[in-house]
């Protein structure tokens, strides 16, 4: 049951979908793989409480009509089986996929920083809450506090309100000047400018950050530092995310160089490894518009259509400007590095508290002494947090990249597909 393809694309969000469509016209055989049950990535996640923009539906329909694109949903990459061959797994089986060229569209995850009470049920990521609501999580009548940093807070609040939640506070850690400066630049990207009006909320406060999630068995309230004052709000949910960080693990495992926390790419979206491309948030956070154009460039370039790829460079540059403005405005305040107390868990898989981690020199030493990062998420949450808090470089990813079944690992013994 092994498989071979001309072009393998990992991730079916905006970048992966655009890459597949751009490459499809050349007629090559394409496999598009994603670990979610449906394509769309995070921004276009579908579900019983999701409202997809028409552009997303259109892209999805176009993909469905491409006879040379095969989509594997609910499928994750487990290991590198051989040169240009990956071991993958879905709910039923494991198998190998051999490819000639690869495009990494592995997206980004939220930076989740530890603070007292953050392990209580009722506390989620900011984008995390939005994703859960789209999947059917009921929030009607619930009192919500949304905290952290970046425009995702407003997007998450809008989704929650649409489903009947009461948003008590949107706490943005960045200062008013930074956010206002960013908003002032928005007319350069008119679509974003108008979108910002629809997302605006009177409960939005800058220079405000979470101090503690309160509650015994589950969340009952939240303590905030709001413009110099400590306040407490009783609430049912706290959604807290401190911006996005690129998912580079698979790219790193394949030998692609990382530059400033993101996969390094050239003008063709090519990584430092021949025949391996990357597009979208895994090459740096920039939003869906940038992901779409980067994906299309990667798709064209991967099938040798340089002219079509080059035509998109100007559009990419425009959205790169937006990404730069965004990343400058929402830079994280150093105060956020001191939220955890000695007994605050940092590694949620192995329940390792902050107190057991301070004083170590580096990630490896802390891990050997405490089991930090050795659980199911393999340091994806605490590794990123400790990189932010202590400047520790997270370890190079090792297979299996995700928890896998023994039967899947046994597939490594199989002869790779030719």
């Amino acid at each position, binding site marked *: 049951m092994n498989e071979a393809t001309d072009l393998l694309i990992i991730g079916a969000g905006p970048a992966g979908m655009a890459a597949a469509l751009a490459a499809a016209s050349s007629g090559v055989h394409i496999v598009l793989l994603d*670990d*979610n*049950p449906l394509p769309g990535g*995070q921004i276009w996640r*579908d*579900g*019983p409480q999701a409202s997809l923009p028409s552009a997303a539906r259109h892209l999805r329909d176009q993909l469905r009509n491409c006879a040379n694109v095969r989509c594997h949903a*609910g499928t*994750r990459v487990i290991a590198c089986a051989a040169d240009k061959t990956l071991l993958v797994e879905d*709910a039923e089986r494991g198998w190998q996929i051999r490819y000639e060229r690869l495009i990494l569209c592995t997206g980004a*995850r*939220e930076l*989740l920083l530890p603070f007292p009470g953050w*392990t209580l*049920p*009722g*506390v*989620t*990521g900011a*984008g*995390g*809450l*939005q*994703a*859960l609501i789209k*999947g*059917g*999580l*009921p929030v009607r009548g619930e009192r919500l506090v949304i905290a952290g940093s970046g425009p995702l807070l407003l997007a998450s609040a809008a989704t929650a309100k649409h489903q009947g939640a009461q948003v008590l506070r949107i706490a943005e850690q960045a200062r008013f000047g930074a956010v206002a400066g960013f908003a002032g630049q928005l007319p350069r990207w008119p679509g974003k400018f108008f979108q910002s009006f629809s997302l605006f909320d009177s409960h939005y406060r800058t220079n405000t950050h979470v101090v503690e999630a309160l509650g015994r*068995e*589950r969340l009952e309230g939240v303590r905030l530092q709001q413009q110099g004052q400590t306040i407490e709000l009783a609430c049912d949910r706290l959604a807290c995310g401190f911006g996005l960080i690129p*998912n580079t693990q698979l790219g790193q495992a394949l030998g692609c160089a990382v530059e400033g926390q993101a996969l390094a790419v050239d003008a063709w979206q090519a990584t430092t490894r021949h025949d391996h491309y990357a597009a979208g948030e895994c090459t740096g956070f920039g939003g869906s518009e940038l992901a779409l154009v980067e994906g299309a460039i990667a798709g064209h370039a991967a099938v040798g259509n340089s002219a079509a790829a080059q035509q998109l460079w100007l559009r990419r540059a425009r959205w790169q400007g937006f990404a730069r403005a965004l990343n400058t405005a929402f830079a994280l305040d150093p105060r956020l590095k001191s939220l955890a107390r000695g007994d605050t868990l940092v590694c*949620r*898989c*192995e*329940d390792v508290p902050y107190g057991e981690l301070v004083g170590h020199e580096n990630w490896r030493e802390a891990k050997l002494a405490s089991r930090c990062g050795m*659980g*199911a*998420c393999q340091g*994806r*949450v605490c590794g990123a947090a400790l990189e932010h808090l202590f400047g520790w470089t997270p370890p190079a990813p090792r297979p299996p990249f995700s*928890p896998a*079944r023994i039967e899947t690992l046994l597939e490594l013994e199989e002869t790779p597909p030719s």
Partner: protein
Amino acid sequence: MPEMFLDGRPLSVANGTSVAAALALGADGCSRTSVSGQRRAPLCGMGTCQECRVLIDGRRRLACQTLCLDGMQVQTRP
């Protein structure tokens, strides 16, 4: 309308509902018990943090990346 079982109790949900959402629709929203005995619930919502891992028909799966199906048995206290 898939009809499933959450820790043995029957639950009917809308088409396309994730198991993570079903945890809150049918019970207290919790997915697992941590190594030190704390109850935990889905955190990242997008398949990264592994907090939402549950047993589904005997296999460990992520609740946030699994859609509810007819007859599905979900366990949060294996």
